[in-house]
């Protein structure tokens, strides 16, 4: 049961409908930023209010919600958002990707493959990928309208000229369905390939900046690059110290004053599931 005194999932139904209308438009124009009248939420701007409003607008009583931050279900902000919905909507929550119907995430896409019918809601701080090259909103809107994206490549050019490679590591810009330039939110570029032709519906909400956008299922998403400097993702020389995975995104943990480090999966559900499948003696400590 959800807490009395507030509407189901906090927002009033009229506001939810307005957000869903915006989402329909966003799905119809993949990658296009749709303005929406973001409401003040009881969680601060910058802490996921865009994602929270999308989730609130989408949740039904039968939904099973998973919330991750940095790939983990038990980081403070993920806990806080999951509790918010447990309290205001009373929906079931889970940490398992396969069980979830709706996954709200900050900065990661789960390692486990997503399926048709699932929705991923991304929290977005700055939805405009051109913002760092062009400060004016009027101008960036025009650039999107006319598909004038040379400027984004100028910024990649500057990276290669300066560093010998494209130095963007997260929030790496993508083209959606060959039409709109889009910020994938600050996920590591490691996750960019997962956006491409995903069977799940991927939705993006920026509360403070009042924008939402979408990548419908099976939509082509390409990371920007040069023919002679193709897009690549991070690889680690060691496997996860806990589950032995060699194909997941790893976080570095400093374990003592001498700076000793270990690398472990950032996706805690993925790591836990792998460990559960393996006999205990095989696990690295």
């Amino acid at each position, binding site marked *: 049961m959800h807490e009395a005194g507030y509407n189901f999932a906090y927002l009033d139904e009229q506001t939810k409908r307005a957000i869903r209308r915006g989402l329909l438009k966003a799905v119809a124009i993949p990658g296009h930023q749709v303005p929406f009248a973001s409401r003040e939420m009881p969680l601060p701007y910058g802490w996921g209010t865009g994602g929270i409003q999308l989730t609130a607008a989408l949740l039904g009583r039968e939904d099973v919600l998973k919330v991750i931050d940095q790939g983990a279900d038990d980081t403070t902000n993920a806990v806080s958002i999951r509790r918010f919905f447990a309290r205001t909507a009373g929906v079931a929550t889970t940490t398992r990707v396969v069980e979830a119907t709706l996954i709200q995430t900050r900065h990661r896409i789960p390692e486990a493959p997503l399926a048709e019918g699932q929705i991923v809601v991304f929290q977005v701080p700055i939805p405009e990928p051109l913002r760092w090259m062009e400060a004016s909103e009027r101008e960036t809107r*025009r650039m999107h309208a*006319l598909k*004038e994206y*040379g*400027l984004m*490549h*100028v910024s990649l*050019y*500057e990276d*290669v*000229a*300066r560093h010998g490679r494209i130095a963007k590591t997260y929030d790496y810009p993508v083209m959606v369905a060959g039409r709109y330039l889009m910020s994938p939110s600050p996920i590591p570029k490691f996750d960019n390939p997962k956006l491409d032709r995903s069977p799940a519906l991927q939705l993006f909400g920026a509360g403070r900046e009042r924008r939402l956008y979408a990548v419908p299922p099976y939509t082509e998403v390409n990371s920007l*690059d*040069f*023919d*002679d*400097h193709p897009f690549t993702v991070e690889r680690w020389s060691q496997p996860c110290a806990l589950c032995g995975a060699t194909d997941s995104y790893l976080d570095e943990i400093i374990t003592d004053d001498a700076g000793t480090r270990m690398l472990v999966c950032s996706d805690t559900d993925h790591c836990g599931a792998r460990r559960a499948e393996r006999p205990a003696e095989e696990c690295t400590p």
Partner: protein
Amino acid sequence: MSDDEVLLRVRGLTHRYGARTACAQVDFDLHPGEVLGIVGESGAGKSTLLHCLATRLQPSAGTVEYRCADGRLREVFALSEAERRLLLRTEWGLVHQNPRDGLRMEVSAGGNVGERLMAVGERHYGRIRTQAAHWLAQVEIGAERLDHLPATFSGGMQQRVQIARNLVSRPRLLFMDEPTGGLDVSVQARLLDLLRGLVAQLGLSAIVVTHDLGVVRLLAQRLLVMRGGRVVEQGLTDQVLDDPQHPYTQLLVSSILRV
């Protein structure tokens, strides 16, 4: 020259700021390979005219027709915004008086020059870089400055980077607004010499606005003399400067000769 060779045809071009008329009833034709100078004192309406021609200002009346690369003469203000902006970064170039208005100061010289290539879909870093180096060399800037920011360049060099940034798309028509304004005399002379060489070598058409008769004598084959927003005299440069007909042109020429 025959009518179908006209590159730019301007008729009755007028621009008003509120009640003030900045330029009125300007007519002229520009032919391929021709450089037209527009001279007059400050406030004569030259810059307004140039900005109207380059579609940065919407004229209050009149037409500007341009013969596109496909050979069709088209009214530029009837083009869609997308077509117009494409024209501005491919077939046209615009050199501002202040290089800061025409350059991205936080982007390297190479990135500045390469931008137009990337804007039309070039996605090979090596080729972009080779082209940028080539066009910087054309304006006498060495490859060692390719990755430097324009802010570290002198005023004359910044102006040359701006020119290279425009030339990289092989434009057919270049608009220049006081391209040598604000530069030292010796730097001006070098830039003019360079511009004259490039215009001849590339067969460019250009419209140059300046208050400096020396600039047009060197660059322009034909001249428009403007005063109070109107064209008071036009003709071949040598003819106008050596035998001015309009009293204002006479005054303008004699004031330069006196200096």
